[in-house]
């Protein structure tokens, strides 16, 4: 009973820490969770994750650099960043509620998959050329800036684009590339997305 009360208290604290934004960027570092929840924070996160599963949410761990192949060490966990993300996927209807248009999402998919295929670094000009193929010219720059502002892409002084922190936290890049390669276009015109989602 005492142990149960202990973890209930820790779970509440973990929920507060992870759901409310504490810094400029969302997410909490492992060492911050250790300070707030104690050394057994990975266990607390595991319990929280199983609670969140019922709500289609999950505790996502983003490691510094490559994801460790085996069980992560304490040090790797302390340096990692933890987020609460959607466990499943969104329906097209829901994206509009989040303020994303079909154009924005298609553009984001294009930019991320292209940069991924170029070893995580590609000139902005090349990505913009590709986007112009699908979006009106005046929207390309606006959309690129939005992806950079949101943290999906980063740009350096030489106008090179990189994948940024939000892409690492939210997007399963491997599956994106696999899906892209396995999807065959039905070669039909883009139908009105607005009509589709209002059905």
């Amino acid at each position, binding site marked *: 009973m005492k142990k149960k009360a202990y973890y209930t208290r820790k779970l509440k604290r973990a929920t507060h820490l992870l759901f409310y934004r504490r810094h400029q960027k969302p997410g909490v570092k492992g060492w911050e969770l250790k300070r707030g929840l104690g050394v057994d924070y990975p266990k607390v996160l595991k319990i929280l994750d199983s609670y969140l599963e019922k709500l289609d949410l999950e505790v996502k761990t983003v490691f510094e650099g490559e994801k460790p192949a085996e069980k992560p060490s304490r040090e790797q966990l302390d340096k990692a960043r933890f987020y609460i993300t959607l466990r499943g996927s969104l329906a097209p209807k829901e994206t509009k509620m989040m303020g994303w248009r079909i154009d924005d*999402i298609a553009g984001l998919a294009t930019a991320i998959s292209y940069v991924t295929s170029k070893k995580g670094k590609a000139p902005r000009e090349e990505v913009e050329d590709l986007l112009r193929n*699908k979006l009106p010219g005046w929207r390309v720059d606006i959309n690129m800036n939005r992806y950079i502002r949101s943290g999906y892409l980063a740009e350096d002084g030489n106008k090179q684009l990189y994948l940024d922190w939000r892409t690492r936290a939210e997007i399963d890049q491997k599956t*994106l590339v696999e899906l892209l*390669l396995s999807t065959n276009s039905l070669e039909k015109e883009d139908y009105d997305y607005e009509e589709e989602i209002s059905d």
Partner: protein
Amino acid sequence: MSSKRQRKKIGGEHLQRIIDLCTSIEEKGLDPFLVDVEDILEVVREYFPEWELPEELSLDAETIHRLASVIKLQSDWLKHRSTSLYTDPFLIEEKIRKLTKVELANLFLEVWHPIVEFEQISPHSLTEAIKYWQGLLPIDERWLQTGPQKREAGTVTREELIKQKILAENTFSEDLEAFWDELKEKVGANEKILYWDFVGANSYNETIQRAYLTSFLITYGYATLEIDRLEEEMFIKPYEKPVSMLGKKQVVSIPVSISNEEWMKWKRGLQN
């Protein structure tokens, strides 16, 4: 003799061309497999017995160093190709061009797991913000204060420095002794006084100053703290003579919070 010099010259030019090729591959991001490592090593090996002077040996070392950088680029390239993330960029580009906007968006939605976060102000931070806002001077007044002021050099007296709080009127020990006398006077025949009754003053700033001096009274052995854990009360008890605690018993530090809320609470208690 002259044929040896000639050979050295040709060898040097050869190595310089290899260095230039490797540098341009590194800097311009060209395909690292343009360099045939085995061929280059053969050339380096061929001329190596000719080198005698330090600058010749240095050129040889520089060639090996540049070649090593290109080998690293080749290794990185192979590593990336062997990962599951590798796909020919042209293939990806072709796919992107063929798929419609809706198809692209739909497949992206399958791999997109957006972060969930709340941005909500709490009643506590709202109260803090209101307090801050109320205390904030109008911007024109603040800007007036920050403007640079031109001043002529002049002389200043000790009294003026004291008035401006640059110099203290009394030494710290004099202040502390006077404060100790005040404590003894306030305690009178009761032996001790409630901490807040002694430290509390009309303004919050003065209270902080008194708490600061009190901490020195206790540390330097002019007084002691007595804590009643049951009643959750804290008393200050002055000594007749300063007592040094060093080495006599274990000295402990007691943190005492002097927040604005606690000062207000004490003030209200006084008024009631």
